[in-house]
């Protein structure tokens, strides 16, 4: 019970308070912000959430091991955690791609186009590294990864809704397309920072 509530609270905080798009801009680029059909957004978000959660679950024990052995200081490499995390993400992506291609072609077909974009989006690596820098336990890390993926998908859906509304109005020519969407995200981010206060929780 305690574990579940911890999981849910950290997931909610990651989805709303530390929303990947609105508070840190992670994983926002022209391709993702301008994604059209909601079905595709859902597929993309599902792939991203899955990859984030599984790689967080994989990378956490590895990170723990590295920290206990103090390999980072012993080898003199500063970002050893990041390298191992990226390796985990790569491994999960490769496995996902191969397994779905071999046994689940129905999942593989919609995934094929977006899986690489989802796995190598800043949102995946960034979320896991933020969770590590916060010093979370295993449940909290996985919950953070899960909530962040959900929040990312919700943010993309909201941005798409905003784009549909903005398409109806008479936007100045220079602002059409990407700039107005960035302004939209910026104003929503302003509102969410009203909830957070002045500083991002770390």
């Amino acid at each position, binding site marked *: 019970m305690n574990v579940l509530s911890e999981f849910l609270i950290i997931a909610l905080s990651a989805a709303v308070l530390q929303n990947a798009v609105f508070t840190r801009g992670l994983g926002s680029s022209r391709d993702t912000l301008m994604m059209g059909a909601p079905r595709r957004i859902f597929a993309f978000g599902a792939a991203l959430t899955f990859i984030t959660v599984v790689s967080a679950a994989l990378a956490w024990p590895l990170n723990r091991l590295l920290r206990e052995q103090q390999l980072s200081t012993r080898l003199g490499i500063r970002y050893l955690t990041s390298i191992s995390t990226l390796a985990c993400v790569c491994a999960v992506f490769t496995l996902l791609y191969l397994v779905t291609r071999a046994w689940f072609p129905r999942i593989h077909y919609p995934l094929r186009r977006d899986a690489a974009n989802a796995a190598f989006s800043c949102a995946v690596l960034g979320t896991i590294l933020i969770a590590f820098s916060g010093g979370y336990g295993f449940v909290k890390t996985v919950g953070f990864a899960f909530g962040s993926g959900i929040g990312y998908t919700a943010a993309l859906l*909201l941005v798409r*809704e*905003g784009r*549909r*509304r*903005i398409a*109806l*109005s*008479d*936007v*100045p020519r220079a*602002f059409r397309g990407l*700039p*107005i969407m960035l*302004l*939209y995200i910026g*104003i*929503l981010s*302003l*509102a*969410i*920072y*009203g*909830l*957070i*206060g*002045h500083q991002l929780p770390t």
Partner: protein
Amino acid sequence: MKLNRRAAPHIRFPESNRTLMSDMIILLLVLCVLAFLYYGGRALIVCAVSVVTAVVCDALCTLIRGRRPNPRDLSPVVTGLIIALTMPATIPYYVVASAAVFAIAIVKHPFGGTGQNLFNPGAAGFSFAAICWPGLVFMYPMPFDRIPAFGEVTAQLYQNPAFVLKVGGVPTNNLTELLFGNYPGPMGATNILVILACLVYLIFRRTVRWQLPLPFLAACAAVTLLFPRAGTGLQAVFYELMSGTLLFGAVFVLTDPVTSPKRDSSMAVYGVFAGVVAMLFRYFGGYEESMPFAVLIANAFVPLIDRYNESLHRAIRRKHLEARKAKTRPQARTLV
């Protein structure tokens, strides 16, 4: 026949955009006069700075976009007044001016100008000022203090009752003080009685539909009743609704005809949603003031609410039509 596509607000009454806005302006000016009585000349100068900046900025943006400025469009005046009245009287002028510039040049005109802005400019301007200068925006002077119009402000500054609620205390102000606005707070948002009178006037003038502010306040009250922060029951509700700019926002900011939904039922949904978000921000947020942020968040969901509400209505209409057809068909048969 030539049909012109016009942007919101759509009005089916002899009123026009101008009358709607001038109704608002008259009431906001009443609040300005009260602020003058309470805080002296500086309050008027703050209002003037805000309004002049907003109007000039609006005209400049319209010119840059290659249109002719419309002198009959009074909406920048309303934006400026809303920004000024939610600030303390001791606010430095540059804060008000930059909030007005942010509201007009970044929130209003890039989205298409009057009638097409997605977010409420007044709420966005106030949020910007609150995030950039929280130390200046959330400290208020006592009413009837002498505040110099220019130069260094030496008056003693206090917190709003909303801050007391935020840190978990019970405000010491009594009810009459709260009703007449005789406590430190935003310039125009403390006179609860006057604001309520404004709400009644606006509803009877049909400038504002009652479906919007009342569900908002009801949602806030319900959240407070269920999870009271200070005192118990009604007392907590009174303190929550009367502190900060909650009531002011419900009457003047939330009811903006451009950024609110179009149907009455979707207005109610919007009001309840905004109320719940506002109370959530109050309970868990970083600042004691929540209304402008909640309005911005709710504005982002307006297209969603409008669309799903419309499809709901369509489904209901279809049901009715089918029911009527089913009723009339047997009769037709008997006639034959």
